[in-house]
C-alpha cells in the first residue's frame, strides 16, 4: 500500500513538473487560449490565429516576469 501511494505521489509530481514547470502561467495561459479559440470558432469566426498570438504573449510575459524577479534580488 505504501509503495502504491509512493508511486502515485511520484506520478503526480512528474505530471505537475511536466505541465507546470517553473512557470504556471504558461500552462494556464495555453488552457485559456485554447478555450477562447474554441469559443471563437463556435461563434463562426476564424480562430486558428489566436493560439499562436497568445503563445507569443505568454513567452514574452514569462521572460519579462523572470527578469523583474532577477532584478528584485
Amino acid at each position: 500500500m505504501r509503495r502504491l501511494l509512493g508511486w502515485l505521489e511520484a506520478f503526480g509530481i512528474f505530471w505537475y513538473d511536466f505541465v507546470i514547470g517553473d512557470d504556471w502561467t504558461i500552462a494556464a495561459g495555453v488552457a485559456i487560449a485554447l478555450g477562447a479559440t474554441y469559443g471563437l470558432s463556435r461563434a463562426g469566426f476564424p480562430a486558428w490565429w489566436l493560439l499562436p498570438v497568445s503563445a507569443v504573449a505568454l513567452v514574452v510575459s514569462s521572460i519579462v516576469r523572470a527578469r523583474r524577479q532577477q532584478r528584485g534580488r
Partner: protein
Amino acid sequence: MNGGATFATTFLASAVEAIEMVTIVIGVGAIRGWRSTLIGAAAGFVVLVLVGGGLGTALTAIPIDVLRLVVGTLLLIFGLQWLRKGISRVAAKGLAGDEEDIEADSGGETRFGLDWTAFVLAFKGVLLEGLEIAFIVVTFGSASKHIWVGALGGGSALVLLAGLGVVFHGHLSRIPRSVLILVVGLLLSTFGTFWSVEGLSIGWPGGDLAIPVLLGYYSSLAAALVLVLRRELAGLRAREAT
C-alpha cells in the same frame, strides 16, 4: 487509384508525419539523453502495433482529434517553457551556453532509471504520429482497395525517415546546448500549436503547410527577443562598469 498511385500517395503523406515523429525523438534525445527517449519511442511503437493490430481498419474509430488536442496541448506547454529557457540562455550567454546549463538540463531527475520527461515526450510523439500514418494507410489503402500497398508506402516512409534520423543525429552533438534547447523548444511549440488547434477541429490555412509558417513565426519571435534581451544586458553591463 492503382497500386502505384496508392504507394506514392501514402508514402508522401506518411513522410510528412514521419518527419514530425523523427524530429521530436531526435530533438528530445539530443537534450535529455538517448536511453529514456528511445525507450519511450519504442513503448509508443509497441502500443501503436497493439492498437493497430487489434483494430485493423477499425482504427479510424479512434478519436484522433481528442488525441491531437491532448498531445498538442502538452507539447505546446512544454515547448513554450523550453523556448523561454532557450531564448533567455542564448541572450545571456551567447551560442555556447555553459557547463551549468548542461548539468541542469541533461537527464534531470530519474525514477526507476528513466528520465520520464524524455520518455513521455518521445512516447507521445511516436504514438500520435504513428496513428496518423496508420490512418493514412487505412484511408487511402481501403479506398483504392490496395491496403497492403498503402501499408508498404507508409512503412517505407517511416523506415526512410527513421534511417535518416539515425544517420544524422550524431551531428547534433556539435550544436551548442543552449541553441539545441531553443531549437527543440521552437519545434515542440510549432507542432503543439498545430496539433492542438487541429484537435479542436479547426482547420489551418494551407493545411500542413501551416507547420513551416508557424516555425518561421516562432523563430522570428525568438530572434527578436534574443536581440532585445542582449541589448538590454549589454546596457546593464555598461552601466555597472561605469
